């Protein structure tokens, strides 16, 4: 899952960024509205955490422009403004959720996770494909009851493919959801990551869950 964090407080950016990364998200951050809008329009994020009072371009305007340009990325407004009018304005502008500072970190993470899941029409915190179970809250996967030993990136790849199970996922999509702006990708980074994951799954259960669609991408489905 890839999340954009637009927050002008460097300290908050650092803390929330770390919490998101530790929770398995790929995070891009911006300290001002203009940078935030540019990132939001150039990448395909699963969710955006947006402060309202921002230098250069305020959060409301950013959101308005984003929606006007047709971007439907779920947005969580994060702000110190707590009046009902502020919240209504935020939600009417196109925000999907609203969190008031100071907030509990757990709540922020839970809300971000709910927003990301909504992207894939999933209201469950578990995805099951045959014997493969992915726990979205615990960030862990099991195959036939046996837990899989995955690195953070492998888990993220598996989670992303599982959320879009049955659909072809292109290399570009995997890149934009699993790697942040600063990642220096080698041309076969996605292929080798899929290869490693597939091997781990095969070792654990012997079946092939990830199928290659030549020239198109990958699809995760029940082994044939």
């Amino acid at each position, binding site marked *: 899952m890839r999340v954009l964090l637009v927050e002008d407080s460097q300290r908050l950016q650092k803390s929330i960024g770390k919490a998101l990364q530790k929770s398995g998200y790929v995070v891009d951050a911006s300290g001002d509205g203009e940078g935030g809008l540019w990132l939001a329009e150039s990448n395909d994020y699963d969710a955006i955490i947006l402060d309202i*009072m921002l230098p250069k371009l305020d959060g409301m305007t950013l959101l308005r422009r984003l929606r006007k340009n047709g971007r439907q990325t779920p947005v969580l407004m994060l702000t110190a403004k707590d009046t009902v009018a502020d919240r209504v304005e935020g939600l009417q502008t196109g925000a999907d959720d609203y969190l008031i500072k*100071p907030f*509990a970190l757990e709540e922020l993470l839970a809300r971000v996770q709910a927003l990301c899941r909504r992207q894939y029409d999933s209201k469950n915190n578990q995805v099951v494909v045959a014997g493969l179970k992915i726990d979205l809250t615990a960030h862990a996967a099991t195959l036939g009851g046996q837990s899989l030993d995955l690195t953070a990136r492998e888990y993220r790849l598996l989670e992303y493919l599982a959320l879009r199970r049955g659909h072809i996922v292109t290399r570009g999509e995997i890149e934009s959801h699993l790697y942040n702006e600063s990642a220096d990708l080698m041309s076969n980074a996605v292929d080798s990551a899929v290869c490693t994951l597939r091997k781990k799954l095969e070792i654990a259960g012997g079946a092939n869950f990830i199928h290659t669609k030549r020239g198109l991408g990958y699809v995760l489905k029940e082994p044939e």
Partner: protein
Amino acid sequence: MKSIRRQLTLTMLCGFGLLVILSSLTIYFLTRIALLNEFDSVLRAKAFTIMSLAEQGHNGIQVEIPRTLFLGTMADENSLFFELWQTNGVVCARSESLKDASLPLHYGSQAQPLYWNFDLPNGLPGRAIGLKFVPQMDDEDVGKMTPVEAIVMVAADRRSLDRTLDILGAVLVVSGLLTIIITIPMVNITLRRGHAPLEELARQAAAINADSLKVRFPVDSLPDELRPIAGRLNDLLQRLESSFERERRFSADIAHELRTPLSELRALAEVELKWPDGEASEKHRETLNIALQMEAMVTQLLALARSEDGKIPLKIETVEIAPLVEEIWRPLAARAKEKNLVFNFDIPSGTIISTDRTLFHSILANLLSNAVEYTPRDGNGKIRWSAGAKELTVSNTVHDLTAADMPHLFERLWRKDKSRTDREHCGLGLVLCQTFAEGLGLGLKATLDNGTLTISLVPRSGA
């Protein structure tokens, strides 16, 4: 409770009642005088008839009273009485109606006869005329006889006069009462109509609360008397609206100011507890910075609240400005050098003012630190004392301040950068300076001219 309508109703009714009573009394007495005059003229005519008929002869005064004397308005011969006396006490003639009684002897002159009321011998109320005169005598007797004086008194029944007056009195009382009774609802209705705009104004005023301060009273549709009131109320609403707006913004800003460092603190602690990474000293330093920032803000807000309450005690002493400015500048010089700023000091040495050193120091420190902080790189500034105007001015070049920002410069928590990314300044410095200056009997004035911001510390009258 005092009610203008009740008071006006009462006053108008009392006034109107008094008017009705006075006019009724006037009508009554004028009519009474007219009727009495008429009655008296009839009496006088009868007395003059007797007078003209009386003749002095050798046997005294003789008179022959015709029956026509009893005709006229007092036709009844039993209700008309007369007596003709000679001044020596001899009765020359008297009406039969007197029977054994006699009229009381009262009289005036021929020119000014005497009239009086009394009870007639038949017990009825009557009115009489009495006058003294010299009866005529035959031409041949003139000069032969000594003229004697006679007194004629005529009295008549005055019941018809009294009845007329009683009826008039009753009519006046009844019509007066009716007029007053009819006037009560009329006054009420008129006052109610007259007060309708006032009540409408009161209704509109009652509907105003903190959320509807944008409402204004319609002045044009009001009567002339209420226009100034509505105008003043509108002015008051305008002032209230702007101060409420300022307070609202201030509260919202306070919330943001404190919520942001609080959430930083909370997120920092929660992340650290959940994913400790061993950089404890770095986290502690961050925590301390956040705490210091909040503390500075709270201290400034408290100082502001206290100085606005006038709780800061002043210790007035003589302060030499140049060394004080130098002392304040010293810690700022490094930052100014780092930004390549050129600052000029134009304060004649030996310039002394009488003030509270601590407050004056705070004001200058704030102004100078702002000047250094907000002057763009390679900019310049000037600190100048004008002996004539007794003004201390701090001016510096600015890059993003516009004329539209000037009215907000002295507002609490106002900052040009709405996002408040700048954590060093919380927008209270200039407000504090202004409040401190007011405490010292001074004022702060800000002007923007060609990209140069000048803040002047001036005597109160010039602020």
